[in-house]
């Protein structure tokens, strides 16, 4: 049972990073369907940076650098994809859906190329990511294992989700960002630089999502590359809808998604095909939530009003 919960939490935090990143992006009015591509690129860039660093440093590598360098690379890889998305949709005013899907195919393909160039097994490095942040956690029994025994990514994901919630709701920057996503013309007339907010929010959001991709490989898969990061990306997108654009709700939502996704492995006697059916459950839940929220039609649970729409000031 504890193993199941731990596994659910570790996977859930990957979803949480992805969905928090996407929420930041969507609050600015950008519907980034390129999230799977972004997460793939984050994972690939992080892994490649790790590979390059380990090859370079050899046996003498420092554990701290082995953790920090891939994280920065994943952030950067994601942010560059966000920059690309923003350039197309803000500067060139391309359709966001089309651009997003293009980013997904592009990101998935490019990440596979990058990873072909590198080693695909990082178990040596991944232990630094999964090593409990709190050293004595293992001695505290099941409580320690369940609450304190995680590597850096779990706590990082929680912190980012909480900080995002705070910034969105309690600061001026958050107020402006929400206004940009709700009604860019209003924000513009109020003297807010809509393009800048969209660029920056998208880059930060995609950076965070990229981190999510890396956490999937380094934390959940213990450093074994698998070609299924994009599936995690689509689930993170669904999680954004599932938790109605609220990163703090996403903390709980990610646990639900994580649990549903890994449940099949912990139920004895599930066939291989049955496992795939189980992995479908998060989508089913999302559809149910969509039905329920549309039926209740509550205003605070709606997506940002201008989600997916480009803005150009002199449009008449």
């Amino acid at each position, binding site marked *: 049972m504890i193993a199941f919960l731990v596994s659910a939490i570790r996977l859930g935090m990957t979803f949480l990073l992805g969905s928090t990143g996407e929420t930041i992006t969507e609050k600015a009015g950008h519907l980034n369907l390129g999230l799977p591509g972004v997460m793939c690129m984050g994972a690939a860039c992080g892994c490649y940076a790790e590979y390059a660093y380990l090859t370079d440093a050899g046996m003498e590598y420092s554990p701290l650098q082995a953790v920090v360098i891939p994280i920065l690379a994943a952030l950067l890889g994601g942010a560059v994809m966000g920059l690309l998305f923003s350039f197309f949709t803000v500067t060139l005013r391309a359709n966001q859906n089309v651009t997003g899907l293009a980013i997904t195919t592009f990101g998935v393909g490019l990440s596979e190329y990058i990873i072909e160039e590198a080693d695909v097994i990082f178990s040596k490095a991944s232990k630094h990511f999964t090593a409990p942040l709190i050293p004595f956690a293992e001695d505290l029994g099941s409580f320690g294992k369940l609450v304190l025994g995680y590597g850096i990514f779990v706590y990082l994901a929680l912190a980012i989700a909480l900080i995002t919630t705070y910034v969105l709701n309690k600061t001026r920057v958050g*107020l402006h960002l*929400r206004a940009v996503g709700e*009604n860019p013309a209003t*924000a513009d007339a109020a003297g*807010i630089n809509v393009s800048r907010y969209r660029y920056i929010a998208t880059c930060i959001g995609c950076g965070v999502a990229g981190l999510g991709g890396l956490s999937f490989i380094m934390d959940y898969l213990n450093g074994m590359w698998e070609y299924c990061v994009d599936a995690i990306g689509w689930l993170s997108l669904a999680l954004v809808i599932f938790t109605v654009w609220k990163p703090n709700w996403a903390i709980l939502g990610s646990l639900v998604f994580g649990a549903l996704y890994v449940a099949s492995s912990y139920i004895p006697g599930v066939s291989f095909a049955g496992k795939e059916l189980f992995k479908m459950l998060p989508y089913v839940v999302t559809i149910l939530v969509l039905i329920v929220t549309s039926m209740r039609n509550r205003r605070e649970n709606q997506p940002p009003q201008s989600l997916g729409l480009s803005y150009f*000031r002199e449009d008449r």
Partner: protein
Amino acid sequence: MAKPVALECRGVTKTFGRVVANKNCDLEVYRGEILAILGENGSGKTTLMNMVAGIYYPDAGQIFVDGQEVTIASPKDAFAYKIGMIHQHFKLVDVFTACENVALGVEDEGRYRLADVRKKVIEITQRYGFVIDPDKRVADMSVSEKQTVEIIKVLYRGADILILDEPTAVLTPQETEKLFAVLRRMREDNKSVIIITHKLHEVLSLSDRVAVLRKGESVGTIETADATESSLTEMMMGVKVELNIERSEPKDPQERLKVENLCSVNEEGRAILDGVSFTAYSGEILGIAGIAGSGQRELLEAIAGLHHLTEGDIIYQDPKTGKTEDLRDKNPIQIRDLGVRLSFVPEDRLGMGLVGNMDIVDNMMLRSYQKGHGFFLHRREPRDLAVNIVEQLQVATPNVSTPVRQLSGGNVQKVLVGREIAAAPTVLMAAYPVRGLDVNASYTIYNLLNRQKEKGVAVIFVGEDLDVLMELCDRIMVINSGRVTGIVDGRTARKDEIGLLMTKSKEEMQDGENG
């Protein structure tokens, strides 16, 4: 009178593609005055002010604030020069509260605390006599409340020059008076108020001076005290025009449409129409007045078979056979075949009546497509009709195969109304048919409606300008939150009486619901 000049525009020019919106416009505004900018639709009033507010950037010309030449490249720059604009289409975030909307974009010193914003908002409301709940969501507000938030927004930023773009278009007479009182208080406070409008009587009652624009150029500025309605119209139009609607007595009125106890609810289960009953007679124009969103649209749609009713009957009496039929259980095509025509002009005029990307001929066919039975289209008849309408109503278009989208609002409207009339209706319903039209085009539409009335058509006209309703209609029905609060005679009704009917029973009705 040596008041200092607060804002001056000199030779300001702006073009959109090949369309010249403003050409060499000059304008002067003093401190502590109310300046009205008057002009027909498309004369460039809003564009000029948008340049002052930083929404557009002028192609040429200079803008001076307090005698200093300034560059206003963005709304932020405009705020820095203490210029604030209240747009015709409100720029508010629906899911935010009044306070959050006010705080938007303000870079105050120190931390962002909503409580501080709230305090300052209350200060402003008390000073100028606004009534508003600072914690109410914009989505739950009435139009006049939204406008109040917009005004507080610019005052919060310390604006000294306020620009209001057609602020009274959506207000009842009572709300308008309240707004004018606030604006006068601002003038006493030594602020400059610029009000864009095309309602002459408002100009005369409120402003100190009037600047007139015509076709993007400034015609001149005169003292309001020296102006009359006819002198202002002359300046606006460039020629002397007679603006009179000929209202004939209804001839041989007969019951044509009897509406009884119509009820309907919206998705959230709130009543939209609440027991609406009235009778429309042939050969008369029945006006419908009411605050925007009181159920006018749904009422007309219900008669046209587009709006679902929970209760009520619509009895139609055929003029030839004298037979009566209930329209309630009929679909739009059956209703149309009986001769009931709806010419509907919602805010988005291309939304329901015409298809923007299709040309005039194709739009004519939208109405007649059921006549043909062959596989191929017969374009001759609709083409003749299109040519006819273009000629008779003087639609300004290169030819009949121009996509409707490219025509100006007034011409689109003429095409739509022309098509509906050509179908020889027995009931003609027109909702806001002159919205966004200039004075000339409006009067063309009024005359069209009058001619239909003389032909014995029962005309139902939903309007927003009470002055026009009182000049055009034989009877005026006032609708308020889905209820008919009164039907008055168009010839003898007083404006304040109608205004009262539009608003009065709100409290009473709430009491009724609670009790």
